């Protein structure tokens, strides 16, 4: 019985596809998967907006939206209707074509990553051999769209925001990919399905998730930080810093195009969180061997919601970084840590089972962390700042 519930969506898809002629079946199957992904993650977006607003409210000792519908749960509907009915303004001197294309390409690119995300057992749109590579390739289009938006708006703030976004996203793409390489080293596969299946075993009741190894833990932290930066969320929301450059590349977007940008940003965040789950948190596998009867997709979405909750928590806690702090952090801390983590993963891989392996890996993670942290903090002496004004 648990197997049936676990595979219910797979069976449903096969049943639906069975009605079409044989030569059409691959295409119909793809369409069914795509529609399922679009519906599931777009509704998760609606859920997340209300969760984020209510959660942020609670973190700041407020109520959050509680007027539309019971407990304010219909707020996303109201927001959607509002953005649909708003006037769509394109600046007179803007590049209208690119201005229109930017949000569309953003949403498309953000959704493309889901093709290789296994959301449950046997539930992946395409099992590519180079799935991880594809994911990062699709994700890098997002950077392009943000620059398209900033450039085509013909607005100084937009361009500033876009330039910040490019600088930030390229800087953080490096630790993002380097930290995920450790997983590729451990599994020997670029396929996301393989990566999850390698983690789905249990020793006793404990799962084989990579986050429970020293290099995996460090990799997960690095990946999460880089993922927050990649999805332009606080504290790395410099590209859209409201207090500095109004809203960055969003400035000239209104109405539904703005809603599309919003959607794209959240969808990108879900995708990269989903990848973090796939790489380090065991994908759809249950955290304990005696909980495997719960359907696999529930575990995936539960983990996804937990990660989103973590992102909201971090957003409510940390203030926005400065440009130089952002770059320092990326190149002086994240990059060395990710590189050392590669060595750690290699050492772990080639050493035999036992406490020695644990000891060596832990030292290889903790010592660089402490030394790097101390080195970075030493130059950060707080002193009175002297401002010199132009005369």
């Amino acid at each position: 019985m648990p197997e049936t519930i676990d595979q219910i969506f797979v069976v449903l898809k096969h049943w639906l596809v069975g009605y079409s002629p044989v030569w059409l079946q691959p295409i119909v199957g793809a369409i069914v998967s795509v529609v399922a992904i679009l519906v599931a993650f777009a509704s998760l977006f609606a859920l997340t907006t209300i969760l984020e607003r209510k959660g942020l409210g609670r973190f700041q000792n407020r109520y959050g939206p509680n007027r539309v519908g019971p407990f304010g749960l219909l707020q996303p509907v109201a927001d959607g209707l509002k953005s649909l009915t708003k006037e769509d303004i394109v600046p007179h001197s803007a590049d209208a074509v690119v201005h229109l294309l930017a949000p569309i390409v953003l949403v498309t690119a953000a959704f493309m990553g889901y093709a290789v995300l296994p959301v449950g057992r046997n539930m992946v749109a395409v099992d590519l051999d180079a799935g991880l590579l594809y994911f990062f390739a699709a994700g890098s289009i997002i950077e392009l769209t943000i620059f398209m938006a900033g450039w085509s708006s013909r607005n100084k703030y937009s361009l500033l925001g876009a330039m910040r976004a490019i600088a930030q996203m390229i800087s953080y793409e490096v630790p993002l990919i380097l930290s995920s390489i450790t997983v590729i080293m451990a599994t020997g596969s670029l396929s996301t399905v393989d990566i999850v299946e390698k983690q789905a075993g249990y020793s006793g009741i404990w799962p084989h998730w990579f986050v429970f190894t020293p290099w995996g833990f460090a990799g997960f932290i690095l990946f999460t930080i880089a993922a927050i930066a990649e999805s332009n969320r606080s504290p790395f929301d410099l590209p859209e810093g409201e207090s500095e450059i109004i809203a960055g590349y969003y400035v000239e977007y209104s109405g539904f195009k703005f809603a599309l940008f919003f959607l794209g940003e959240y969808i990108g965040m879900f995708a990269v969180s989903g990848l973090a789950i796939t790489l380090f948190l065991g994908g759809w596998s249950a955290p304990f061997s005696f909980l495997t009867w719960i359907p696999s997709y529930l575990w995936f979405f539960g983990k996804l919601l937990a990660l989103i909750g973590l992102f909201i928590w971090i957003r409510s806690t940390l203030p926005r970084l400065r440009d130089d702090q952002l770059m320092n952090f990326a190149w002086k801390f994240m990059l060395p840590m990710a590189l050392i983590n590669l060595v750690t993963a290699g050492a772990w891989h080639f050493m035999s089972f036992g406490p020695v392996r644990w000891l060596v890996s832990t030292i290889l993670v903790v010592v660089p962390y402490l030394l790097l942290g101390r080195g970075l903090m030493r130059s950060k002496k707080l002193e009175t700042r002297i401002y010199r004004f132009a005369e």
Partner: protein
Amino acid sequence: MLGEGILKGLAETAKNFFGSFVSKERLTTVQFPEERLPQAEAARNFPFLVYDGHDWQAGLRCVACQICEKECPPKCIFIEKSKDKKPDSMGKQQFYPAVFNIDVSVCMSCQICVEVCPFDAIEMDTAFELSTGDRFDGLLWRKAQLAKPNSYFHQIHPTAAAEIDKRLAEAKAKAEAKAKPVAAAAQPDPAPPTKS
């Protein structure tokens, strides 16, 4: 250690998050239409005209002196003086406003009309939940709409109203005391007009 402050901050916000569900004191928000904070006594929004007694047309204190109209900085008051006279609350014959309009879309709630009124006829209202579907005529308040009884004034600004009532009563008593000997003196000898 690097990251220590971040963990401390996360703990603090987590405390806020769970605390806001447990203790009511953390949530300082007043959920407005259902819950209301008491208004300050000096609260003010738009001016209104005070009348004594029950008949708003007879009891209106305004004598159409037009000082407020002249003093109003954004010029939102429009007064048309009457041709005839009517006895006011003191029993004296006075003009009255034939038309008294306030354009509330122009009014800036500065209270200068109240300060300059020598008859305490115009006062500030506290009603603030005002809306109208008609943005032209609905925003022009006429005499009938502006006239509110003295009891209402007591209700919204008790201290100020009591003070004004006392002052008016004193003035009335003084006027009556003055009018009596004059009337008594005027009866037997109407010829010489009093010097004062």
